[in-house]
């Protein structure tokens, strides 16, 4: 096969790729708040995305889940916004909002018709300046109950849900900030107090720890004045301190299993891999695609299509700021085999395919397929102003450049097939990984 002998960079067969250009304005207010604006007049809407550099990795032991609980409190009103009015005002203006918390960041958005951007700025600036004016123990109690139910719904009562809680606990030592789940432990949620909220707010919810990105139908010069108006009384504060990360390494095969109320077992193979945007990150993204991206990918084709022994298989490089995980997840079809045996059989085949990829670079066609898919994904992200604002903020946080689209694509285009095999050899050793299984609980 040609690809085995000649290593061709991903972009080599393409005519000069069309550059993605996302013009933006960026400026910093006196209080330290950075703002990124991108005009898009195709639909009369706008998205205000506020990215706070704080996530579950910033939490203290005994208060896990706090960054996420805090995220909930940000919607409960602030100094000049009564409880409930954050949503009342936005819904009355045809707006919607949400937020998400990860290990590394807490990301808020408000989507509005273009006439209501001022309302979004009022609400965002008020909660950044005056949240603590309204925080009470009762408010913390209310959202504590909601978050506990979020944990019950998304993890405890979801098939295989508790695997997501357990796997990071095994991968990372107790003092590593990725050891505990973003949603937190029930007892820590119970312990969280209004005092904790105040302390957390003062440390992390400051203008220098936040970036506002707005995309949509507006005039940048006029909008800048409104931003300066609304955020003028937000007082400066400290930047978040850097996180101390103990070294972490898997030195052998770690095997663990748990039971769940499920019909079929599931196997998770996990490795610790390079953090986002660092060497190896893009390579492993391509490895994941070659292995399990679509019907013609190697693992899907063999396990699901040809042999029909798996119901599904997935692979992903889950990139994070302090380190990443590469994970292969597979669920067997029902069979006469005992669950452990069924998983062992799947593992043997996965290892064969991994070894093939380590020994032989992907074909040109595989490389091109992955690249073409990535380019489409880039365009799709740009369709909605919500996606634009989020991506600008995400790139800025990761690289210091909001318009990193072309550089990001270039990361992938620069990869050769040999690089992919090399990354698989370097980062996905068969003898150093976590082999985690979920087994069906005995029927009652």
């Amino acid at each position, binding site marked *: 096969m040609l690809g085995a002998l000649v290593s061709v960079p991903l972009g080599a067969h393409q005519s000069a790729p069309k550059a993605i250009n996302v013009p933006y304005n960026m400026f910093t207010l006196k209080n330290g708040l950075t703002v990124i604006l991108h005009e898009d007049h195709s639909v009369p809407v706008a998205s205000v995305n506020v990215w706070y550099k704080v996530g579950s990795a910033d939490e203290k032991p005994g208060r896990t889940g706090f960054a996420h609980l805090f995220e909930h409190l940000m919607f409960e009103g602030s100094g000049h916004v009564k409880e409930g009015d954050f949503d009342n005002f936005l819904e009355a203006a045809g707006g919607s909002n949400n937020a998400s918390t990860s290990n590394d960041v807490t990301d808020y958005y408000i989507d509005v018709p273009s*006439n209501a951007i001022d309302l979004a700025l009022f609400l965002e600036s008020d909660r950044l300046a005056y949240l603590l004016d309204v925080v009470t123990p009762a408010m913390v109690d209310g959202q504590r109950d909601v978050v506990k139910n979020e944990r019950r719904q998304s993890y405890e009562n979801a098939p295989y849900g508790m695997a997501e809680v357990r796997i990071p606990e095994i991968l990372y030592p107790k003092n590593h900030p990725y050891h505990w789940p973003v949603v937190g432990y029930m007892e820590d949620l119970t312990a969280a107090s209004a005092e904790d909220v105040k302390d957390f707010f003062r440390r992390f919810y400051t203008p220098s720890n936040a970036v506002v990105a707005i995309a949509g139908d507006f005039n940048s010069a006029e909008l800048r*004045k409104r931003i300066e108006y609304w955020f003028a009384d937000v007082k400066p504060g400290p930047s978040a301190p850097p996180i101390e990360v103990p070294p972490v390494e898997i030195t052998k095969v770690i095997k663990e299993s748990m039971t769940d109320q499920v019909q079929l077992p599931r196997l998770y193979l996990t490795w610790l891999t390079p953090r986002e945007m660092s060497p190896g990150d893009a390579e492993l993204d391509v490895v994941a695609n070659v292995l399990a991206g679509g019907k013609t990918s190697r693992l899907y084709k063999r396990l699901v299509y040809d042999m029909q022994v798996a119901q599904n298989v997935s692979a992903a490089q889950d990139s994070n700021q302090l380190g990443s995980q590469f994970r292969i997840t597979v669920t067997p079809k029902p069979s006469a085999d005992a669950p452990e045996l069924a998983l062992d059989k799947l593992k043997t085949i996965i290892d064969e395919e991994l070894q093939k990829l380590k020994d032989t670079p992907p074909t040109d066609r595989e490389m091109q*397929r992955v690249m073409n898919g990535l380019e*489409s994904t880039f365009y799709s992200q*740009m369709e909605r102003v919500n996606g634009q604002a989020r991506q600008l903020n995400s790139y800025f946080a990761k690289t210091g450049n909001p318009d990193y689209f072309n550089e990001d694509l270039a990361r992938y285009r620069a990869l050769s097939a040999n690089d992919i095999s090399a990354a698989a050899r370097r980062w996905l050793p068969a003898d150093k990984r976590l082999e985690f299984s979920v087994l069906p609980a005995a029927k009652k």
Partner: protein
Amino acid sequence: MRHTLTLSLALGLALIAAPALTAQQGPDRTKAPVLGPAPSLRLPPIVKRTLTNGLPVWIVEMHKVPLVDVTLVVKSGSSSDPIAKYGLANLTADMLDEGAGTRTALDIADAIAFLGGSLRTSSDWDSSVVNLHLPVSKLDDGLGVMSDVALRPTMLGTEFERMRKTRLTSILQGRDNASTLAAMAFSKALYSGNHRYGAPAGGTETSVTEFNVADLKAFHAKVFQPSNAQLIVVGDITAASIMPKLEKQFGLWKNTAPVAKVTLPAAQPAGPRTVYLVNKAGAAQSQIRIGLVGVARSTPDFYTLDVVNTILGGSFTSRLNQNLREVHGYAYGASSSFSMRQSAGPFQAAAGVQTDKTTEALKEFFKELDAIREPISAAELARGKNYQALGYPRSFETLSGMASELVSMAVYGLPETFFNEYVPKVQAVTAAQAQAAAQKYIQPDRFAIVVVGDLSKIEKSIRDANFATVKVLTVDEVVK
């Protein structure tokens, strides 16, 4: 991560005047800002054309990104499944891309992935859909694969057996999921006596074994016809550029026989209010579904029910979400919906609630479902209407969003004026109309109430509350 700020001058930032206010002055926070008039919906025109075989084509140009979205919608779906062969339409759609023309299943997947696109085949209650989404530069190659998949599926027996095995495994896995079980039990309770809506669109463990590949071929031949279909193209194209390509790929497709319009029988009238319990040992939450048979998409009360549902359980500030989540903290969220189909689909209120508050949560549900039949305040009505009407433009932001609105229009025969009428008609809903519709369609004494949870912890309390007659269903009874 630390970073250096750089100022982009590309957009003429240097021309922007100095800040109007200094930090000392501060904004006026005594009230929320007064907003200017909401922008009106600015939709690009729908260009309507027809291929030589009579297949209608709707084209909407959107040039923001170099992508195109092509949908062939066939106006028959799971409602057309023969009795006992439930799941036939759905598996037919699933099989379209498992081999077509001269291509194998893997050839198709490889071709589309190589083009950096997606080709999806799916079905709903009233339609079957083949959707191509890819960079506009790859359109010619993509359309060739798409027309094979839609018009010339191979339907090999071996591929069908593989797909059936996968489907049966998915159905088996549904037993793991309390939400899936609750949805199945609820449909079954509302639509008894073999009504199509009583079983999942994808079929059941039993029904999926009741047909074979010949049934799929016959179903495809029967409903996939130009007279029963429509093309919808959205994206970075023009009508002039796309029409010859569509004519080449779909123009020779011929009608064979008229496609009969399927009308499902009316659901049997609801019996007395009943509670159905399903055990899920150890469940941390109880999944609740409450409701009754609602309305068809053709209901004259469409706009009124849109507003009523928004206020009851269709938005974050809705009564159910506020009560169950914000006031009581029993749930992560609570919602309601009218599922509008060619025939009357279900109205349902739903939530997952913590096990030890299941009975309390049910009481709060009933409180809100009674209260929505009372007059709605002007402020609440205005907020509900605005949320729907002013948020409407966002439905048209993406190619897929626009295409999905056009598919609905085609499948349900909505007038071309629908998009432009939506906002004024929502805004015209009165408090009296809202109350009348709530009283007509939300009838608490006819509710079916489904609770899937740990019965060892919740059954006694639910029985003691005397909500209604209680029936316990086994998981087998729910999924068979």
